[in-house]
């Protein structure tokens, strides 16, 4: 599958095709309009501004951040639900942001999305069997009989009875619905599943069932996950590496145990501190340095470092210069002028 006419830029920048998924300098802007009829464009929100990440085959990459930080937008761009304003999404050596039509549809088989809300993401008027069969129908895979057996196989894999195929979504609990969503995402044998807040809508006791199921399926299917969540403990449990986002920027990127043990960015530390732990002793002994203030408007983000308005370590330079991502260890990057960890010598990216 060689592209017939590689563009000049692509030819120059294409690295050895070792990486499974590479997001390069991704920018996504949404227009902001005013007026009921004319919809004048009065500006744009940079939901994601210049984010680069790479994900290796078989790994779980976690994106964590608060509402409006752009994490969901990245997920939607990666599966092709949104087109990037600029930047590249290189999936197995191919820029999927540039694909169109039939080629694009084919590629999408490999990239599936698991949604946050198990109540809103399943059509209430379709039987579960049809919901799971739909991707196969759309992609014209197999005949009716093969599709039926695939549906019952998928239901068993996610821990439901094949009889569930004849029932409607309302007959299932939240956790079971999330299993149905996972079965639908698996139907096309994808290589990458983007799980956007996979357990946020679920109760604690059901949550761990779904998290364990996701881990098991990853092993048996050799899946790669991009897990998106506001909950650092969920992301940390699932992920090998974690990216922390703030207002459209990637502020820190590290292996998940490093993020927790040695955070370099003050925002990451603030996030860790903000999570209430189910342990009264530790919770009460915490030296809390809460992140003060509110999230600034994404329409008009602060100059320089975007976190400076809420940062306890901010100084003058933070308003003037945007901090670059610098290395703090193997696979550990953070963008801060006054980091909590020593910068690795000779690092200025």
């Amino acid at each position, binding site marked *: 599958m060689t592209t017939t006419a590689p563009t000049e830029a692509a030819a120059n920048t294409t690295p050895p095709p070792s990486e499974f998924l590479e997001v390069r300098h991704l920018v996504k802007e949404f227009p902001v309009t005013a007026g009921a009829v004319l919809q004048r464009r009065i500006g744009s929100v940079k939901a994601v501004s210049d984010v680069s990440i790479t994900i290796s085959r078989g790994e779980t990459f976690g994106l964590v951040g*608060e*509402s409006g930080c752009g994490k969901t937008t990245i997920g939607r761009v990666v599966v092709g639900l949104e087109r990037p304003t600029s930047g590249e999404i290189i999936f197995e050596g191919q820029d999927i942001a540039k694909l169109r039509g039939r080629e694009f549809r084919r590629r999408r088989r490999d990239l599936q999305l698991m949604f946050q809300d198990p109540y809103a993401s399943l059509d209430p008027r379709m039987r579960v069997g049809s919901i799971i069969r739909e991707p196969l129908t759309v992609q014209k895979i197999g005949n009716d009989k093969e599709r039926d057996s695939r549906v019952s196989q998928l239901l068993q894999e996610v821990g439901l009875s094949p009889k569930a195929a004849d029932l409607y979504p309302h007959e299932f*609990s939240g*956790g079971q619905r999330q299993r149905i969503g996972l079965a639908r995402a698996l139907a096309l044998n994808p290589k990458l599943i983007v799980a956007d807040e996979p357990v946020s809508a679920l*109760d*604690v*006791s*059901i*949550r*761990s*069932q779904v*998290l*364990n199921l996701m*881990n098991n399926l990853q092993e048996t299917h050799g899946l790669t996950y991009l897990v998106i969540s*506001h*909950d*650092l*403990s*969920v992301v*940390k*449990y*699932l992920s090998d590496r974690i990216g922390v986002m703030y207002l459209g920027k990637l502020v820190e990127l590290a292996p*998940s145990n490093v993020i*927790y043990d040695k955070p370099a960015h003050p925002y990451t530390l*603030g*996030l*860790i*501190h*903000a*999570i*209430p*732990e*189910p*342990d*009264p*002793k530790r*919770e*009460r002994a*915490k030296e*809390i340095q*809460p*992140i*003060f203030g*509110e*999230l600034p408007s994404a329409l008009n983000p602060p100059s320089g470092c975007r976190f400076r308005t*809420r940062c306890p370590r901010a100084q003058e330079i933070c308003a003037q210069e945007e901090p670059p991502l610098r290395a703090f260890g193997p696979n550990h990057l953070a963008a801060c002028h006054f980091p909590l960890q020593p910068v690795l010598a000779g690092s200025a990216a």
Partner: protein
Amino acid sequence: MAALLEIKELRTYIRQRKGEVRAVDGVSLYIEEGETLGLVGESGCGKTMTGMSIMQLLPPGGYIAGGSVQIAGKELVGLPDRELRKVRGNDVAVIFQDPMTSLNPTMTLGNQIAEMVRIHRDVSKKEALDRASEVLGLVGMPNPRERLKDYPHQLSGGLRQRVMIAMALSCDPKLLIADEPTTALDVTIQLQILELLYDLKQRLRMAVLLITHDMGVIAGRADRVNVMYAGKIVEAAPTGDLFESMRHPYTEALLASIPRLDQRTDVPLYSIPGLPPDLSHPPTWCRFQPRCQYATAQCREAEPELTGDTPEHQYACFNPVGRVRSPSQAAPVR
């Protein structure tokens, strides 16, 4: 020992077309003055219905089928609505989960808070507005005077929750019912609001009923905790005891299934199999029995009562968890 709030054998049912749901089925609890009681459980366990039964703000079809609710010795069950209205917002105030939909979008903040003050206090409009800016200042709203003329849509979620708290505080309630006060907020804002509630409770010597599904929120803020499951209280204990030496298998399972930040990721999380029972036909034996790893034949014969070695630590279980067993040693089910 006169408790501020005393609930005894409360039963709150909801009439539905298909039958009656026993949302709260014999709950007894108390809150001392100035104390924070955490009420924790999963969705549908009746924790919110318990809170709303105190104020008798029940959904259509909901009614109190039995039991008693007393505030400072005054019985609320059976009180006429006119009398109840004097209690709501005055002795007892509520803050709800969703700050986005709990404020009136067509009224300024000042008028919303002043309205409440004037219902309960005989004051002029101006005095009521003064009180409004005073309580807004109390909850850490910047420039409270100017904010009086703002509308809810001009505020972020965190600030709206502050307004809700300000409104609840405006008549100096003795008891504040906080129903999932931070669930809709981002974690950094959640921490700010929890700190604020804790600080206000200390300063105003107010009792708080903190209703939440989040064991972490409970851990740092509550003096005592009641754990609810399927319409009943299954364990009641001082916070430290509950986390260190929980006796009910449900409490143990709940704590073990939360991924922690220092969790080992190569070990599967403990997960509770199955689902809670249907509360329109609750079983007559232990309600947690089908999901319990310690269940014996006895558990299907009778319903365990709340008992315990001390009056402070009570649990409803025939085979309570031993003190030495820690949740990580519990056998994973799948």
